[in-house]
């Protein structure tokens, strides 16, 4: 490697370290670091636990020479690397390496940093660790094969790394353009529909296809996880060169993926600004239409809600969070329709599934509430100079969010109905009655976290840094209120008294409403005290 490149990488590492040290001068930053550390420890415990499990499983499967399940495990880890970053992006702390473009970096340094950035992701570290555990399990059971299967694991890790990066940048690019967003959500809706159509209309064909794949496993051999599995199989059978051949084929995948990644990084190096590609509209002279009118609401609140919903509709990141919960019942429904085994509780008791889906909806959209001003940018100044109380601003945001979550809850119900999993009436009422309690608890804390731990987010980008302390506190709140609601539901379900649960939820909701109102009355003075932090955080370019 060029010595200039190494010098630049070292200088940037030094710069980041200084930035980190300087960032710890305020109490808020130290709190955020503490939150991040606690989250990291929790994440590490879960990640290491799964890793140890994978090690043991791989060890015993290799020891007993029962290798078929290993293929499924490798596929699971491979898919986890591709899918998890999309789901947990908001709660992971990452660095945007594109900011480094302001320095005179060579392209080679920039490319190297882009890969380091990908590896710096907690999901990538976790999945790499899992792969290492599987490798260690097999290698411990059969030490003689370790050297032969190592290249296959290494190649699989590298290929998955490139594929994950390519996938994320492709989605980011798609979401940052209005037409791309439309296309993405058309694909999303079509996928949901096709899952249903394929699941019901083509269920028999799917069964046949599955049986055919089971009878002809070699068809899967074109994919990296199956190739890695093949490397283990051939190696354990004493054919080391076969394992090396499989590794070489996996590595071949890496070539086009690396080139695609290099092409993207080159475009960014040359100054492409994905966040500025949105909304380029042709010059139009259409008349200016009047804003929305919502019954019972004052004009300023209506204007704020209109702005919130327009922003959400133009923000792929937010839309994904609001649409993902619909997938869960659709997935179970489709699998059930295709005749596959589904956890019994999910098919036997759709009401419980529905309740779980609502909890999941609130969990996945948690960061939309705990960092509500993330996308305002310089617009936050407008909210401070406008003749509107800040409590009204945040109440409008709460209303818009609550409307989206309630819409989700209704849509989930219809998705379940479509798949023949209609929740019972008492179950539906109980789940909907729990919603005010859960929602009010979430937004009461979220309103405060948004003031105390604000973070600026840009449109059309995944993997933006959320405050660690904010994530931790929001997560704790979700766990506590989820446990209370879940506990009541479980007991009521066991006693067959879901109506009582609904009443209890309404009482809890009324109590939480008082807490919410009380917090809101203090919001103006809190916002006034926090306005400098908010504007400084959201208005920096």
């Amino acid at each position, binding site marked *: 490697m060029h010595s200039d490149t190494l010098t630049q990488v070292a200088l940037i590492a030094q710069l980041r370290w200084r930035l980190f040290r300087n960032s710890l001068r305020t109490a808020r930053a130290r709190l955020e670091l503490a939150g991040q550390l606690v989250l990291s420890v929790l994440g590490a415990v879960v990640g290491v636990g799964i890793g140890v499990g994978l090690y043991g499983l791989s060890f015993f499967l290799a020891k007993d020479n029962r290798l078929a399940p290993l293929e499924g495990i490798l596929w699971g880890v491979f898919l986890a690397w591709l899918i998890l970053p999309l789901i947990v992006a908001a709660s992971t702390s990452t660095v945007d390496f594109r900011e480094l473009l302001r320095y005179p970096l060579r392209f080679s340094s920039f490319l190297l940093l882009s890969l380091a950035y990908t590896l710096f992701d907690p999901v990538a570290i976790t999945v790499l660790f899992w792969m290492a555990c599987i490798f260690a399990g097999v290698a411990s059971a059969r030490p003689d094969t370790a050297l032969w299967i190592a290249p296959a694991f290494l190649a699989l890790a590298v290929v998955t790394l490139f594929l994950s990066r390519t996938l994320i940048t492709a989605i980011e690019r798609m979401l940052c353009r209005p037409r791309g967003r439309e296309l993405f959500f058309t694909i999303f809706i079509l996928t949901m529909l096709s899952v249903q159509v394929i699941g019901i209309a083509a269920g028999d064909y799917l069964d046949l296809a599955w049986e055919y794949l089971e009878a002809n496993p070699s068809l899967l051999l074109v994919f990296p996880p199956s190739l890695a599995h093949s490397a283990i199989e051939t190696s354990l059978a004493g054919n080391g060169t076969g394992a090396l051949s499989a590794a070489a084929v996996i590595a071949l995948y890496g070539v086009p993926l690396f080139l695609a990644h290099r092409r993207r990084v080159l475009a960014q190096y040359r100054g492409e600004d994905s966040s500025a590609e*949105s909304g380029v509209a042709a010059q139009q002279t259409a008349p*200016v239409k009047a804003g929305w009118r919502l019954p019972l609401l004052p004009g300023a609140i209506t204007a704020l809600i209109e702005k919130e919903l327009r922003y959400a509709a133009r923000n792929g990141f937010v839309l994904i969070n609001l649409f993902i919960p619909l997938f869960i019942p659709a997935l179970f429904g489709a699998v059930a329709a295709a005749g596959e085994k589904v956890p019994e509780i999910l098919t036997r008791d759709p009401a419980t599934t529905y309740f779980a889906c609502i909890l999941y909806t609130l969990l996945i959209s948690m960061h939309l509430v705990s960092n509500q001003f993330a996308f305002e940018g310089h*617009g936050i100044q407008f909210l401070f*100079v406008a*003749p509107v109380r800040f409590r009204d601003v945040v109440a409008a945001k709460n209303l818009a969010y609550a409307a989206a979550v309630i819409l989700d809850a209704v849509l989930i119900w219809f998705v379940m109905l479509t798949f023949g999993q209609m929740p019972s009436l008492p179950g539906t009422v109980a789940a909907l009655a729990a919603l005010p309690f859960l929602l009010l608890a979430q937004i009461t804390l979220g309103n405060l976290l948004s003031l105390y731990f604000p973070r600026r987010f840009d449109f059309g980008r995944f993997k933006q840094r959320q405050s660690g302390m904010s994530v931790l506190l929001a997560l704790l709140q979700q766990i506590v209120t989820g446990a209370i609601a879940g506990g009541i539901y479980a007991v009521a379900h066991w006693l067959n008294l879901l109506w009582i649960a609904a009443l209890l939820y309404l009482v809890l909701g009324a109590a939480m409403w008082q807490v919410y109102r009380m917090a809101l009355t203090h919001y103006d003075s809190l916002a006034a005290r926090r306005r400098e932090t908010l504007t400084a955080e959201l208005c920096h370019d």
Partner: protein
Amino acid sequence: MTSPVPAAAILTENLTRRFGPEENGLLAVDRVNLRVETGQFFGFLGPNGAGKSTTIRMLTGLLEPTAGRIEILALDLYAQPVQVKRRIGVVPEGLALFERLTAAEYLNFAGRMYGLDRHTAAQRAAELLEFTELADRAHTQVGEFSHGMKKKLALAAAVIHGPRVLFLDEPFEGVDTVAAATLRSLMSRMVAGGVTIFLTSHVLEIVERLCSHVAIIHKGQLVAQGSLAELRSGVEGRAAQAGAEPRSGRPGEKLTLEQIFLEIVGGARTAADQELSWLG
């Protein structure tokens, strides 16, 4: 019997802002007493870091003073913030734009936030887009606009409700001649209609041409305040007392605002031969 003193459009008493702890923090604005009369076109000047933006941020409610009082149109800004904000328009340094709304949506939004009904807001938005020559980009998202277009839009949003006092932080910075002419035209029209305009700017030629009154802040302290003629005579008087030549170097010729400014805050730096010799 004396007639009561008419209320000022903007009045500050010992306005102070300190950043950081009292013992070693930065005193950005130090006991500033400003008085801007109704209908004045007021320029607030100062070198970089003098305290201009800090002052205007306090005057518009974006920053809380450490001490002192602010009255806008005889209303206490911190006791009656909503009432004051209804009467003023603000274009802050960052322009306060929502970049993912279209220009028309943003003006509609601004109008309704300032209490206009939706039809009036839409009608005024259309008129303002026409006036600022942004009508053909009414349905383009603000994020796609050039800097000059953003400034025009921010000004349009700040005046959509017909404010009585308008605060502008560096309205001409980074704006081309054509956009600047549009901004000037809108401001002149407002002042002619009795609106008070308070602006900060580094472009002294424009301030000299537009403003009837000027204040200069230096190292957090107000060092001059008055009409251009008052400032000029003050500087000339001081120069005469000290027996120095006028800066214009041409007897009988009026001092420009730039010359007055340099006289008050200190002259330009002249690099010694040995300084920065590596620059070539």
